[in-house]
């Protein structure tokens, strides 16, 4: 953390984070309306705003003997983790904080979601939520190691844990081209850390909303907003890791970062409407016996390539 921060990044980051989170929510609503066969799906664009409006005016609600502090910590941890993860992501070439260990920092912030979801599920003292909270822990056991391998593989290719240097190292060739396995595994883990779509078992409908079942009002709003922010950050980190960061013709670097982030984000949102929920009692074996060995081989290939 030696170089000074450009002031514009401090202004741009929250705007981009909030804007993209809303865009993801709105896109999700539109895709849902299309799926439901609504004649004017574009009208669903404002659905997230309407839900937010309801969250603000809804009566306060408390379950029987809840642990309010733990629930609140869990709920608020989501946006906090997302923001802290976002500070190392370069917008173009400029992150808010140019950490030499940006990749590790991102990893550490993302792991906070384990605690956040579990605390939310546990704190409200509700059986469905409890089961949902534990589902996330099981999911973490399945996605975290492949996720870390994907991060390390990209860092290995660049010889640096600084996201800006990782992006810069892809000058000639984007990492996605020669680390396709790592890229796909990363996208999978991006869905998992935001418990989104096919990895949304912790908040799935068979538990009437799982870990989030008892949340209402501002708690629900912060929880869901935090989840969209996580999805945005997960998509944004894929850009410096695998998609060449801000590199691209004609347009300035920050535009390319934004365009690529939007593309990844749209793919992640779309996955929810294309795929069904994965249950970890089925998926665990595949994760350990296919994803991890595949990532081992991918890392080995990259290690051999970077040998002097």
């Amino acid at each position, binding site marked *: 953390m030696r170089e000074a921060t450009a002031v514009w990044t401090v202004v741009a980051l929250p705007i981009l984070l909030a804007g993209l989170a809303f865009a993801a929510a709105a896109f999700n609503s539109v895709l849902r309306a299309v799926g439901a066969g609504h004649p004017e799906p574009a009208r669903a664009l404002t659905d997230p705003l309407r839900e937010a409006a309801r*969250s603000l005016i809804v009566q306060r609600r408390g379950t029987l*003997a809840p642990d309010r502090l733990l629930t609140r910590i869990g709920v608020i941890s989501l946006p*906090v983790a997302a923001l802290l993860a976002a500070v190392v992501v370069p917008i173009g070439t400029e992150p808010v904080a140019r950490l030499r260990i940006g990749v590790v920092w991102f990893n550490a912030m993302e792991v906070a979601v384990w605690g956040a979801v579990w605390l939310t599920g546990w704190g409200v*003292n509700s059986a469905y939520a409890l089961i949902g909270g534990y589902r996330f822990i099981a999911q973490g056991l399945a996605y975290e190691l492949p996720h870390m391998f994907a991060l*390390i593989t990209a860092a290995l290719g660049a010889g640096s844990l600084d996201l800006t240097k990782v992006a810069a190292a892809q000058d000639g060739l984007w990492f996605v081209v020669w680390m396709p396995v790592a890229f796909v595994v990363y996208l999978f883990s991006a869905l998992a850390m935001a418990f989104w779509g096919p990895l949304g078992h912790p908040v799935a409908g068979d538990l009437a909303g799982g870990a989030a079942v008892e949340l209402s009002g501002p708690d629900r709003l912060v929880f869901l907003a935090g989840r969209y922010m996580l999805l945005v950050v997960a998509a944004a980190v894929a850009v410096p890791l695998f998609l060449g960061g801000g590199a691209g013709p004609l347009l300035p670097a920050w535009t390319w970062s934004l365009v690529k982030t939007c593309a990844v984000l749209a793919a992640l949102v779309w996955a929810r409407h294309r795929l069904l929920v994965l249950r970890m009692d089925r998926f665990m074996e595949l994760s350990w016996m296919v994803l991890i060995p595949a990532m081992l081989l991918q890392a080995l290939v990259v290690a051999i390539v970077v*040998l002097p």
Partner: protein
Amino acid sequence: MQPYLAVLILLGSLGIAIAAVYILSRLLAVPGVVGVGPFLSGGLPSEHAVSRFHVRWYAVTMVFLAFDMEMVFMYPWALVVASIGVKAVVEMFLFLGLLMVGVVYAWREGALRWA
């Protein structure tokens, strides 16, 4: 601007935004607090939900812990592969191979399935 200052400013802004949500809710919401039981699709609880949850994937957590510890070492390793060379790659992948043998053993013992 110092990076730590920038991060603090951002964190503070987020804190203000979250506080604003809760304060707005206090000001605008329909008054009163609804005390409710846990949602049990119309049923009533027989006991508190907070309990010792039987995690049957317990064995996976053990294997995970062993592997996860190792992964932390891979971060610094990734930085020095290029300078140390073949030795670093051979050592790391021998170690990973050993761990993977352990995982395969755990898999064959059924540690990765529980349903």
